[in-house]
């Protein structure tokens, strides 16, 4: 029980450290609005580790400030209007750098922690992409 709690705490922490990159990654396929990104992240993690909505909205604002994403209001007529986010070229470049850094870090940690070998194979694929 305590072991499980520790696992969760560690994973959430790790995930939080990569919020920027995760949000940038969620925008690679196309423009999305705030709650859509939140849902995409929540669904991708099977609902187990969700990033708090307030954290996400703070992240959007920071990314806009740094020019990594651009925000614009959609023109929905019914219901509330949605604020969409678009990945910029700067955002794309930062995303690529961050993913490369993560892959390198993960490889080192995998080696140090002696985790199964198949991780190294997938990371190789990731690097080729």
């Amino acid at each position, binding site marked *: 029980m305590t072991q499980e709690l520790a696992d969760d705490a560690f994973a959430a922490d790790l995930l939080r450290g990569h919020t920027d990159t995760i949000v940038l990654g969620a925008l690679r396929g196309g423009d999305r*609005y*705030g*709650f859509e990104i*939140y849902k995409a992240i929540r669904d991708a993690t099977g609902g187990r580790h969700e990033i*708090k*909505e*307030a*954290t996400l*909205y*703070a*992240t959007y*604002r*920071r990314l806009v*400030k*740094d*020019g*990594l994403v*651009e925000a614009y209001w959609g023109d929905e007529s019914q*219901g*509330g*209007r*949605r*604020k969409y986010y*678009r*990945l*910029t*070229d*700067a*955002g*794309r*470049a*930062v995303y690529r750098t961050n993913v490369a850094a993560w892959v390198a870090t993960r490889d080192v940690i995998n080696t140090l922690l002696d985790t199964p070998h198949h991780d190294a194979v997938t990371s190789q694929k990731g690097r080729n992409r």
Partner: protein
Amino acid sequence: MTSVHRLLDQAFADIPLTPEAADLKEELRTGLVERVAELQASGVPEEQAALSAVAELGDIHALLDDDGGAPAPAPAAARDTRSTPRQAWSADRDLVALNKVRPRPGFVGGVVLASLVAAGAVVTYTLVALDGSTALLPVLAVVLGLAVGWILASALAQETTTNHPLPRERAAAWGLAGALVATGAGLGLIAVPTWDDRFAVAWIVGGGLLVVVGAVLFTWLGVTQTNRKKAWTRHLSSATASIDNFSKDPAVAARFGIYTATIWVSAFLVSLVLGFAVGWRYAWLPYVAAWIVMMVMLARMGFGRKDADGAS
């Protein structure tokens, strides 16, 4: 659904409604409405759903208080730049040094090579054209276009000290536009030595078409271009504000626009007069003159005077 709007109003009750806060409130509203719908779909009663949706959101004050949240490595230094101009300058230089990106050797070699090819093509083109022959000119125009396109694309795909690289496909599109314009100009100019020839018009039309397609592509790329500037550059520019007169004084910018239009219309008229009176061979000269005049004017109007105290 009304309850979620009421709760949102309550959450924002003690927050001064700045444009920024209003913006955030509207953004949060969409998310809340959708979350409530989600919860209701899973069987939660409306009132309860609204309450949990707002509760899940967390603290709104924290969202508005922090000025951009956790800073990137550079901003700490960038914030210092506000103090005094002298310190700002040295902090700028530190940032430039800190963020310096060395050009890749392959890129430098490639650009030098492509520049030599382009220069060689232009020189050969001129010599062949002066000779009165048109045999090699189309090939040379294409070679020039390819070299220009290659330089443009590889330069844009390259990371610089202040800019992130463009994605490959986009850089290639810029290169293609440059290649089209350069090739088109080269093909169009073939008409000059062969003016009496009946193919002259065909060269002008064909070349002009390529230039127009390239220009349209350039325009589309320019309009859809997103930010490439690195975060530290953006922090710097927001800290030091604008240095050009145009962003400080819209009237100067408007005057510059009117002068520019006048210069180019005059250049066009003079080129027509020259073409009819002296000969079409010299009709391009006014455009060169117009370009020089416009650049001098840009330098004087855009950056003149005001920076007398800043320059040293």
